[in-house]
């Protein structure tokens, strides 16, 4: 018995638009004020969001919640999506709760065939549905639901998300196409009815409940006829006019039916409460489900024309990560700033890593030659002034990011010129150059000797160093410039 009552309630709620239309004539704007639904400017997106959100919250929690949420669009969106998901999920779980506008109306269509109005329309259905499908998701400023859905539609990610959640809700329902269509028809009728009224008086408490069914209808439509949105844009106005025309014919019949259904109105509030409680319970359970996919979808937004399935989204995230890190690498690796193209950049990076590794090799080799007996008197070294000096020069860094990797010897030039420690510069420079040019074939003592020789002479006379050293003749110009610089100082 209760169950039947529920059905009655549901069908009532679903048929409410028709009764609502009549109510509107009676109640006028007073009800709007009561429900905080007065939104004179429907194009204002925030207002619409609020309206929609409040409507949703009234569905979910209690019928008399205020729409005082002045939260940002994003929050509204998130909540909305979560609720949509939960609603649809709860559709799956409990087909008889009040929340399941669509689902339950399907059932009610079974149980109370009298209450299914759109059978009249079945003949012209196919064509018109298409048209309506196109028209529904678009922002109609004077429609409550559609106006509020409008801004959502413009959000690029919303469509896919909604489609996803409609999948949740639609599981196992695809076989009842006929009833879906009927419901589509119903919502269409609602649409055209409200358009006929085309006033602000669309919003009475019934309007909120209707939205549930409408929402589901929208989602379902998107699922069942995904192309409709893009295709039927030009068709909308004409089809709606046709609807309006058809609607007028049906109006009288429907009014009688809705009169019948108004009897069940008293039980509506109770049913609503039950339903909301059910919904809350279900929400707790079902919230866990949609929260997992939500994480991905909120951060990743597919642009127009991009694929929206999970795999390609994940792939896109991965690629973004890679490119971001590549940018970091670009900053880190000198000479990579001007390079465009990943392959070239990777080349640079590889070169850099290789050069660094080679430097490590070379330096370890050098250290091995310098300390033939391995017992580095480290304490002396650490305490020595030179060490500190060398350390002091470290932060300036040999890789001041503009230096080319390949021009290895010239690091020293670039780096050392501004440095104060010019006295030990030459041996170091020579070491580097000779070590690189003569690599392994030369006995390692050789450049050591050269270095010591050079440094010994260095203190006495610059010119003798420049011209006296055979090893350095490759870098004569370099050294002379340095000499000049020193002279200037």
């Amino acid at each position, binding site marked *: 018995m209760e169950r039947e009552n529920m059905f009655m309630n549901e069908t009532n709620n679903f048929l409410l638009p028709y009764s609502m239309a009549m109510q509107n004539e009676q109640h006028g704007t007073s009800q709007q004020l009561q429900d905080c639904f007065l939104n004179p400017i429907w194009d204002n997106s925030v207002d619409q969001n609020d309206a929609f959100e409040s409507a949703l919250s009234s569905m979910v929690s209690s019928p008399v919640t205020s729409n005082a949420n002045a939260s940002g669009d994003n929050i509204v969106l998130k909540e909305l999506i979560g609720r949509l998901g939960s609603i649809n999920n709860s559709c799956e779980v409990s087909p008889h709760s009040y929340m399941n506008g669509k689902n339950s109306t399907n059932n009610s269509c079974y149980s109370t065939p009298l209450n299914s109005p759109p059978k009249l329309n079945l003949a012209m259905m196919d064509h018109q549905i298409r048209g309506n499908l196109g028209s529904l998701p678009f922002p109609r400023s004077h429609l409550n639901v559609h106006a509020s859905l409008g801004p959502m539609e413009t959000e690029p990610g919303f469509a896919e998300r909604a489609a996803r959640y409609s999948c949740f809700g639609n599981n196992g329902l695809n076989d009842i196409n006929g009833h879906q269509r009927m419901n589509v028809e119903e919502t269409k009728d609602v649409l055209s009815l409200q358009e006929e009224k085309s006033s602000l008086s669309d919003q009475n408490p019934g309007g909120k409940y209707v939205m549930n069914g409408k929402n589901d209808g929208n989602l379902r439509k998107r699922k069942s006829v995904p192309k409709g949105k893009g295709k039927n844009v030009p068709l909308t106005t004409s089809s709606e006019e046709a609807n309006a025309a058809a609607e007028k014919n049906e109006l009288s019949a429907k009014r009688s039916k809705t009169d019948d259904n108004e009897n069940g109105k008293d039980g509506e509030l109770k049913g609503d409460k039950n339903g909301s409680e059910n919904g809350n319970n279900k929400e707790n359970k079902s919230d866990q489900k949609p929260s997992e996919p939500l994480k991905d979808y909120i951060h990743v937004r597919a642009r127009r024309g991009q694929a929206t399935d999970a795999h390609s989204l994940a792939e896109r995230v991965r690629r973004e990560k890679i490119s971001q890190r590549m940018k970091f690498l670009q900053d880190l690796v000198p000479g990579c700033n001007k390079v465009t193209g990943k392959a070239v950049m990777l080349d640079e990076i*590889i070169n850099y890593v290789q050069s660094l590794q080679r430097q490590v090799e070379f330096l370890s080799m050098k250290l091995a*030659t310098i300390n033939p007996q391995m017992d*580095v008197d480290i304490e002396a070294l650490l305490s020595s002034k030179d060490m500190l000096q060398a350390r002091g020069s*470290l932060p300036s860094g040999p*890789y001041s990011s503009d230096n080319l990797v390949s021009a290895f010897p010239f690091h020293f030039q670039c780096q050392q010129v501004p440095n104060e420690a010019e006295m*030990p510069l030459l041996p170091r420079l020579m070491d580097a150059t000779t070590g690189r040019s003569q690599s392994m074939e030369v006995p390692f003592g050789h450049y*050591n000797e050269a270095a010591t020789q050079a440094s010994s002479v260095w203190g006495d006379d610059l010119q003798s160093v420049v011209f006296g050293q055979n090893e350095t003749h490759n870098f004569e110009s370099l050294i002379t410039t340095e000499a000049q610089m020193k002279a200037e100082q």
Partner: protein
Amino acid sequence: MQNNSLRKKEFMGKWLKGLQKYNSSSKDMNFLERKKAIKITSDIAMASTRKAGTFWSQALLANASNDDSNKTILEHMLGTNSKIVERASTTLLGLANNNSKKIRSKKILKKSCMAKRVKRIDSHVGLACCVIAKKLMKKRTQVLKNLVPGGKYLKKDSLIRETLDYIASLRVQVDVMRSLAYATEHLHCQQSLVVKPQ
């Protein structure tokens, strides 16, 4: 920069510790042995400065621990952190086992797809350049994987992250080594300067 100098100091301390240990353990070494010892100690020091948090450092430690002669140094240098090495080597082994299968199956797949691919390239000329670019990238990532220690077992995004880290610490290593080389050299120079007038 502050962080960098801190890292340098840490690396320096560890490396010198390792060198001393090496020095005390074996007296007579030829040039190559010495070089190898220096390199390994510096590598280990570098890896241990990263606290084995990154993959390349783990791979370095694991590779170093494969050699028996290095084990004592490793234990000495890492001290209490010797467990890290075990963990690193085990993870590396596990990854190696996992990936060898994958690679093999990938190779088979490649071979089987080869014929199809060639046809596709012929039919779509526009796709050809895309395929070539992909190939170039693949080659380079392969090279990079060989360069970065433990890179063979990494995916591309994590490989780049590891490369970033590795480059940073390589720079630290090179800086410190260079400064040390320079300092010792300068010490020699001074000694020779002092010696010469006599």
